[in-house]
């Protein structure tokens, strides 16, 4: 009996220490969405349960090892106890209730994260290897950054051009896969102004690690200003160069091609037009209109030296006018 009392006290002490220890180091990132609240609430209960159960098993285990250790020279056996049916029933039935309680809380928390606001703003998300593109259909805006207004639910309608991706902003908690051939929805209500990042969470190929994009939560005023500015740019960019630039954002080209000379998954566009390009078959070619067109329509036809062969870039079917606009844009990158 004395052993049980000591172990009981130690279990409680250990559980409390474990819980406060874990709690004090701050396990989760900043809470930046309304959906995160119910998730973090449930997580906290899970940490309490984990701390208690950890103590409940480890304390008597370590206690037994210390107290019931065979002394030097001892050879005998322990007490002959085969089992105890009421104990077994107790530790089957009590956890059953705990499990059901957690399942119920889980369902409740899921319901909270799925709560629909009929006035949610709709934004379209396109995912592809290895870039995110965001479209605000009402304003004709296409952007590589996602801007969101504070305290306003948005619903992201997400589509994939190639393989499965997954939309995850750790500060928002919620994650949703983007599956080819269908539109998946992601509802979020940002509650904290700040710069975050969406990071693709489903392995999507060679440059999966770099499939990230900025997510900026603005106050409603800043958000409106950004929308107005972008809408103006979209309206003004009727020149071929402007149209070309919009294409490069829309098709996610910038996920693999830099415009500042740095090396990403694909060759940089900086100073590309008109330059001499060495191919991986040892020949070289001038990057003229024909070469650019071929590289878009059939990326595998000529692979630049130093890049994966066969090319990881999928073919893009652009119209001749779009290609002309794109080349006009490319010429500006020097």
């Amino acid at each position, binding site marked *: 009996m004395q052993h049980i009392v000591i172990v009981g006290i130690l279990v409680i002490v250990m559980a409390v220490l474990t819980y406060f220890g874990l709690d004090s180091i701050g396990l989760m990132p900043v809470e930046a969405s309304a959906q995160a609240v119910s998730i973090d609430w449930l997580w906290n209960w899970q940490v309490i349960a984990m701390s208690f159960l950890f103590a409940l098993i480890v304390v008597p285990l370590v206690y*037994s090892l210390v107290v019931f250790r065979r002394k030097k020279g001892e050879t005998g056996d322990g007490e002959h106890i085969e089992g105890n049916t009421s104990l077994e029933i107790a530790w089957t039935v009590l*956890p059953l209730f705990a499990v059901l309680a957690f399942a119920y809380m889980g369902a409740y928390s899921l319901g909270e994260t799925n709560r629909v606001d009929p006035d949610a703003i709709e934004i379209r998300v396109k995912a592809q290897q290895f870039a995110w593109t965001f479209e605000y259909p009402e304003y004709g805006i296409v952007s590589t950054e996602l801007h969101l207004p504070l305290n306003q639910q948005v619903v992201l309608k997400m589509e994939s051009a190639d393989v499965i991706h997954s939309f995850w902003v750790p500060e928002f908690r919620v994650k949703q896969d983007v599956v080819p051939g269908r539109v998946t929805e992601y509802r979020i209500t940002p509650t904290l102004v700040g710069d975050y990042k969406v990071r693709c969470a489903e392995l999507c190929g060679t440059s999966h690690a770099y499939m990230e994009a900025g997510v900026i939560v603005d106050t409603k005023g800043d958000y409106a200003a950004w929308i107005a500015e972008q809408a103006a740019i979209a309206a003004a960019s009727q020149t071929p160069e402007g149209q070309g630039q919009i294409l490069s954002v829309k098709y996610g080209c910038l996920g693999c091609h830099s415009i500042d000379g740095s090396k990403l998954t694909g060759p940089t566009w900086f100073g590309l037009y008109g330059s001499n390009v060495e191919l991986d078959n040892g020949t070289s070619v001038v990057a003229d209109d024909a070469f650019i067109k071929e590289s878009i329509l059939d990326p595998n036809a000529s692979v630049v030296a130093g890049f994966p062969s066969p090319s990881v870039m999928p073919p893009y079917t652009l119209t001749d006018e779009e290609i002309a606009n794109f080349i006009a844009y490319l010429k500006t990158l020097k």
Partner: protein
Amino acid sequence: MKKISPVVRGWLSFAIGFIVAYILGIGLVYLVNGSLAYSHLVSWIFATFAGAAAYSWGASGFSPLTKGLAWMNLGALVGFALGLVIDLIVQGSLNWVAPTASLFALLFGFTAFFLGVAGFNAVSKGLIWQISGTLLGAIFISIIRVVMGLEWSGPFLFTEPAWVLGGFLGVIFFLSGNGSVSDWFKWAKGIDTPEHHEESHAGWEKYLNISLDHKVIGIQYTVTALFLISVGGLFALVFRTELAASQLQFLTTDMKLFGQNGPQLYNTFMSLHGMIMIVSILLGMAGITNFVVPLLLGAQDMAFPRLNAFAFWISVPASVLLLMSLILGGFDTGWTGYPPLSVRAPMGIQMFFLGVFTAGWSSILGALNVIVTVMRMRSKGMTAFRMPIFVWAAIATSIIALTATQFIGLSFQLVMFQRLLGMGFFDPAKGGNPVLFQHLFWFYSHPAVYVFILPGLGVISELLPVFARKPLFGYRWIAMSSLAIALVGFLVWAHHMFTSGMNEYLRVPFMYSTLLVAIPTGVKFFSWVATLWKGKIWAPTPMLFVLGGIVVFLLGGLTGPPNATVSIDLHLHDTYFIVGHFHDTIFGGFVFPFFAALYYWFPKATGRRMNETLGKIHFWLMTPSFFILTFGMMRIGLLGMRRRIVDYDPALNFDATHLLLTVMGYLIAISVLVFIYNFFNSIKNGEKAEGNVWNSRSPEWQVPSPMPTHNYDQPFEVVGEPYDYGLPGSKYVEFSAPAKSRH
């Protein structure tokens, strides 16, 4: 002159061999590139392999191992040269990193090793036949392609369809060529074969040949598993090294090996680490089960000895296929191989699919054998609730492996056909559905995790009473909890898909079923603690690993429910939290108990015991490192570290943690090296242990070690409960005639 110890001689030879080969490597690179490179990969590979052969020569002279390693060096060089020439002819230019050359070096090196060790044996014959079969199949398809006017060659010498048929034929050739199916052919022709083969090879050579003895097969499985664990661990060290700091320093975009650049290699290593470890777990547990279950039952062998040998031997070509996938382009999908990514992945994925498909056969047939053996071959008096508890675990495991493994084979086969034949199973443009694959895949791959852990939990339950000197608390409850876990495990697969876009409402029932698994698992933990309570505990190495296993598995178990509750999983899914969680479950459920079982039954197999001091060093080095490793993984996972990424945003401030994790990874590797040295050294030099080393009640310990070829000379009858420690005068088994009075 004073006698120098073999170890010193070994290291001296190693140093000479290493330096000479390193210089040769530098010379070769100079000849090829025209410039001096002092730290080229070629020099390192040359030096390592030559150094290993030189060590063996210095330490043991021209022993079989020395010969094997020397032949391996030679074989790899010949293979490399041959591959280079073929590649030169086909591609028209000399390419020193041509995958063809690497592939030939690997296959020839492997084969030459086994040829050198013991001439023609089942392994070397099998490998020679596998290489021939692969080339034959590939050439056959290539000829058809030439006739049809299609391209026949590619960067990997042959085209994808050619390699797939080749890989498949290679497996069939291996099995027909090494003799593992020859008895069945004889039966088909009406020729009788002896009921129980007497060993045609004595000593260690029997392990390289076909044997129908379950103990030999058990050891063959175990050693293969240790080899694969080392390979899988090596892959982990490679990518852990890259992760030690943000940005790319080691696997850079400029490097090129096996037709892949750094990030692509990272993906291949990471994906193969997963599957190779899974296969090694399946083989490792098959090894323990094979060795131990017939002994525990009092049977002479497994129910189907030939099927048993076949199930082992098919895993060898399967492992070769998995390694081939690394060289034939690799793949970037993770071990899960989700389409559409796996449909677009490089060609290595096909070898991966074939390898898993083939390894699955081993698992299914082995499980069938275990079930029949337990049903039919128990000793007199061994009723269901008097079976040793490990047998219950083996049965529960086998039920899953027998009925679920088909699903992973099927799902991978469908992707294979989608790639080869354009069947649009998972292609939305052709009416297919990518999410369907995930259902099929997880219908095996979730229950599979119970295949990995249930035998390990069985080992814990089996060993705990021996070292606590107390009956297993609640034997029936533990036995039933294994079955309960196995059966509930079939109904939880979709918890891997909470974010996949499957029907939203289905997530809730899967949350309930998943959380239910916690109950039988909890029963095990409570019963284990109650077993220890008021025992007379002693803790030699096997017990240390049992206790370590309990605590590590507890951490894995406790971090499970948050993943099961849907809303939290929306945050945790595909992060390092999951990586930490499942490494806890797998180490607690497999690695620790596997080591415990090896330390515990080693004297039964060899008549010697492993060194206690080295065993304790192994434990005390591995356990704390492992705790830090998984705690660190879970910590950064919660904060935003994704799974399966080659690089991470420096702004996340994970660099220090990742460096720590890498160091811990290396410490675990060192501890396993200590184990492997201890394992192989103790076979010859271990302290003699022919009696009941652990003072166990179990039948296999009532007869001398090593176990006689036909197991028990006299049958035994079960006359009591298996774990009645502390009950004076009680016995579990009684032999029909006392073993000693035979002479």
